[in-house]
């Protein structure tokens, strides 16, 4: 493998969040992983938060399994006013990335820290989004 020129490093891989949404629409949850330090992350961004442009990340597909890190029960929402209350969780995926997702009614009934969850795909406002259900 040849050492990239500074220009190549500066440009980096072309990763837009459209890639992420296209996969979600197909029922796949994509994450980014660093080949150097194995850090795995969302949100979608072109470089590793630990290594920066020194490495080029690749895309992996998550198994969708995670645990509940924190949550908020939303009683007033700016964009989904008519659908409250609902619960948004901060979910730590087994691959190491943290993701925000709504909890299904079952998962939201009595949320507890570190509850085991699994990603499910739901249609909302014309988009496929990732929710989390108990497992």
């Amino acid at each position, binding site marked *: 493998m040849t050492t990239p020129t500074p220009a190549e490093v500066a440009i980096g891989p072309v990763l837009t969040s459209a890639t992420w949404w296209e996969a979600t629409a197909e029922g796949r949850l994509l994450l980014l992983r660093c080949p150097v330090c194995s850090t795995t992350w969302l949100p979608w*961004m072109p470089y590793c938060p630990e290594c920066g442009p020194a490495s080029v990340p690749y895309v992996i597909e998550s198994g969708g399994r995670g645990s509940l890190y924190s949550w*908020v029960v939303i009683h007033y929402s700016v964009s989904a006013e008519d659908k409250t209350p609902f619960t*948004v969780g901060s979910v730590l995926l087994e691959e190491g990335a943290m993701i925000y997702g709504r909890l299904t009614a079952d998962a939201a009934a009595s949320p507890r820290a570190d509850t085991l969850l699994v990603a499910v795909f739901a249609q909302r406002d014309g988009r496929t989004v990732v929710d989390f259900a108990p497992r």
Partner: protein
Amino acid sequence: MPISKTVWNSAAIVGVGYSPLSRGSGVPVLDLALQACGGAVADSGIEPALVDGILSFSFNNDSAPVQAVATGLGLGDLTWALDCSLGGQAPCYLAIAAVQAIASGAANAVLIYRALNGRSGARVGQARLPGAAADQRYAIGFDAYAQNIALWGQRYLIETGQRCDDLGAVPVAQRRYAVDNERAVLRKPLSYEDYLAAPMVADPFRLVDCTIEVDGACAILITRADIARNLKHPPVQFLSGGYRLGHRSGLDAGDASLWPDLTRNYTTILADELWGQAGIRPHEVDSAQIYDCFSSSVLINIEGLGLAERGGGIEMIRSGVTGRDGRLPINTNGGLLAEGYLHGMNTLAEAVLQLQGRGEVKTSRPPQTCVVTSGAMMDGSALVLAAAR
């Protein structure tokens, strides 16, 4: 490397100005900014011609620019001016920047202000936090500032073994101060029963765990130490200060998904430097003005700074330590929770007034030192200030 003692000693805070705080000012933001900035200049007694720097911060263009303020105040040539797009992490940070400008010779006297029609105009509580991580949040209806901070508050409660209702200690204690603060927007007493009866907004936050949005402006004036000595009020000294944008701080103000620990924020990173350079320990400081956009932010900030033990903030507040007769009065204006949401500019101004013996609310022992924080999450700033010696 910390900012040198020589830099801190080169400047002092000499004036404070406010516009009235209200739910509907009925005037343009520029008028509010001019009231606060003109007020701070007059309050200090400085010759207005000496003012040659202005700094301000805003969110989603909700303020009036420094150019307009300089013009409206009839100032001469400025040598230093800056409009920053920042939130509550800014006030102490901008004070530090002003001190650095003065120490370097770039300015002699610098105004810092925050002005907004935050209630009758664009409301931050309903504003989107734009940025690269936002589209995923908005798609799931996770779309308001209170909700972001609620994730921090909930995780804090989980890890410290406390319950949502326990957060009430913070707004109840701060309201006791606000009752006696003429400037505060919320002055009705708040009992713990009132707290429990308040509606849930973003569980674990009830309405009264959230700052009250207001129209208003607040300004302070910082000048050269030699000028400061000959003005109206005793100058407030800088002992130390710092800003931190923590590692993995995310792609926008609402993105904490890369932050490793929602129970610890920038204060944890900043604490050692802050106390080390100030030459006092956390248990020795005798007042604190702590950024409180939401109740849990007070707890994470005071524990991060070492003012309370991990998980001990609520019990400390309940015990009266932070009240007017306590060892460490905190948020003596009622805080952003009750005085009003000027994004922490009023938090810093309250520290100045208390150290000058001019607070609306008098504590039983006038403070000689004060720690001030700006910010609740991944980045923020803090100062340790002292009364004139």
